[in-house]
């Protein structure tokens, strides 16, 4: 065999081996969480809050963490949608490639890359400074702040895909800049839905940012200013318990979190496909 075809053969094998290792890793992560979780899951996990002595192996479930996580992520998402849409629109309408718009984009890109633990630490510092205690409210704020740059940049990129003709047509019909932007939003709606649901998955799965801003509590929050339990933290606390019964519950909590995140990710695919029919091609 010629040297170059031997080389070809060698690297082809290397590539197949790499992709197999990667796929094996992915499947191993998913199957481990699912299999361990299914065997540990019970109905009471889903519909009860922790009873006394839960972390010593007592009865109860993690309803508080499931609902807490959903409250937190939904609140944060609503907050960041209301802020990110205007920002993305503003970036979009400044059609001139000014240095100012580039500055905003760059600083948002930098914010996207900052680890969530730093967001958590900074918000916690501010909370200490003004004397606030960890609560659902501050958890929401922290999560909203760290998904905001991600959401703005993805909506911004999606809006850039809008055909120029549509914008020109909108202006030609006499619309103002704001009315033109509403056309752009409608046109990029499927992408915006995807961005929102992906950000939801990011928000609900993050533990580092809410470790001290949201606190933890064994009961359901009755107001915005009470500490709230969340799934990622429930997993973290349960897995570090010395009791095998409690560790089992971490596996079940992991499965619940995985199901929520996967549902969001699948929903984003289905919904964006569904909304595609309203898009002018």
């Amino acid at each position: 065999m010629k040297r170059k075809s031997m080389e070809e053969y060698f690297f082809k094998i290397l590539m197949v081996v790499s992709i197999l290792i990667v796929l094996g890793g992915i499947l191993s992560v998913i199957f481990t969480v699912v299999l361990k979780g299914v065997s540990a899951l019970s109905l009471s996990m889903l519909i009860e809050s922790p009873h006394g002595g839960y972390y010593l192996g007592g009865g109860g479930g993690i309803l508080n963490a499931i609902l807490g996580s959903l409250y937190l992520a939904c609140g944060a998402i609503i907050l960041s949608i209301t802020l990110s849409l205007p920002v993305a629109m503003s970036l979009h309408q400044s059609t001139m490639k000014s240095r100012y718009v580039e500055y905003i984009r760059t600083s948002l890109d930098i914010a996207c890359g900052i680890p969530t633990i730093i967001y958590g630490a900074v918000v916690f510092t501010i909370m200490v400074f003004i004397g606030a205690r960890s609560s659902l409210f501050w958890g929401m704020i922290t999560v909203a702040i760290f998904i905001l740059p991600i959401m703005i940049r993805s909506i911004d990129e999606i809006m850039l895909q809008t055909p120029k003709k549509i914008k020109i047509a909108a202006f030609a019909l006499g619309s103002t800049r704001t009315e033109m932007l509403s056309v752009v939003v409608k046109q990029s709606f499927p992408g915006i839905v995807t961005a929102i649901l992906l950000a939801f998955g990011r928000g609900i799965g993050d533990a580092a940012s809410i470790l001290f801003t949201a606190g933890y509590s064994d009961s359901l929050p009755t107001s915005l200013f009470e500490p709230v339990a969340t799934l990622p933290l429930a997993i973290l606390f349960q897995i570090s318990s010395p009791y095998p019964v409690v560790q089992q519950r971490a596996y079940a909590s992991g499965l619940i979190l995985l199901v929520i995140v996967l549902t969001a990710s699948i929903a984003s695919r289905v919904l964006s496909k569904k909304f595609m029919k309203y898009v002018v091609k």
Partner: protein
Amino acid sequence: MERGSLDRWSIRFMSIIAFLTSLIAIIIAIVLMWKSFPLLQISTIQEIVLGSIWQPLAGGFGFFPFIMGTIWVTLLAMGIAIPLGLFSAIFLAEYSPGHIRESIKPLIDLLAGIPSVLFGLWGILVIVPWVRDTIAPMWGVSTTGYCVLTGGIVLSIMVLPLIISLSDELFRTVPLDIKKASLALGATKWQTVKYVLFRKTYPGLLAAIILGFSRAFGETMAVLMVVGNVAKVPTSVFDPAYPLTALIANNYGEMLSIPLFDSAIMMAALILFIIVVIFNILSKLLLIRIQKAV
């Protein structure tokens, strides 16, 4: 209100919010510097970065073990993820038939969305026992399994989706004509990849790798769960480590009780912040260079 002035006011309102969001990164930098400043008054940057005595109660704040912990875990993770990710991306972009690519890509995107706690859980359940019972005995070492190697493996799986999807997209931007020209001259597919694809995309690949690095630096939960958290400079991959992110996560709840401790934790966050921002700006500069070239 009249349409014209409604338009003007809403545009103005939107650009004010846009300006405010651009301040997020700056405010974070200011808070971190403000809080970590007191520590700089009692010791020099050199003592903080290169000192290895970590005794908060006695006022010893040397970050060297933590910085080394972060570097060991990150380098190991990237050492695993870069070759695996690049080879997988080449396979997906150039070698695999369309339907295989179409079925693998969603799986990789899915992996990108899985919360880091679940990777930590997977690490504890699968990688820790594997390292403890299989890998370490092979080298004749005994370890608890909570070590740099475990952290590196878990982290590498987490940055793989980023590297694979970025470089896969890069490879696909290379015009078909150039590839065909290379193949027509008698080059094999691998030679085309080596001499045409790599040469055409290397700034982008570098940007992807740098982004992977900055992601790996900042990853907290999964690493914290499997890396052992012992404040000592690791001497082998089977030693436990204590990365900066884990230091912040484990301590910022109690940082108010010890003098200057909060300042030290914020210093850790500041070091992390500076590293990550530099890496992000580097990759952005590289990407701008590509856009200009295209």
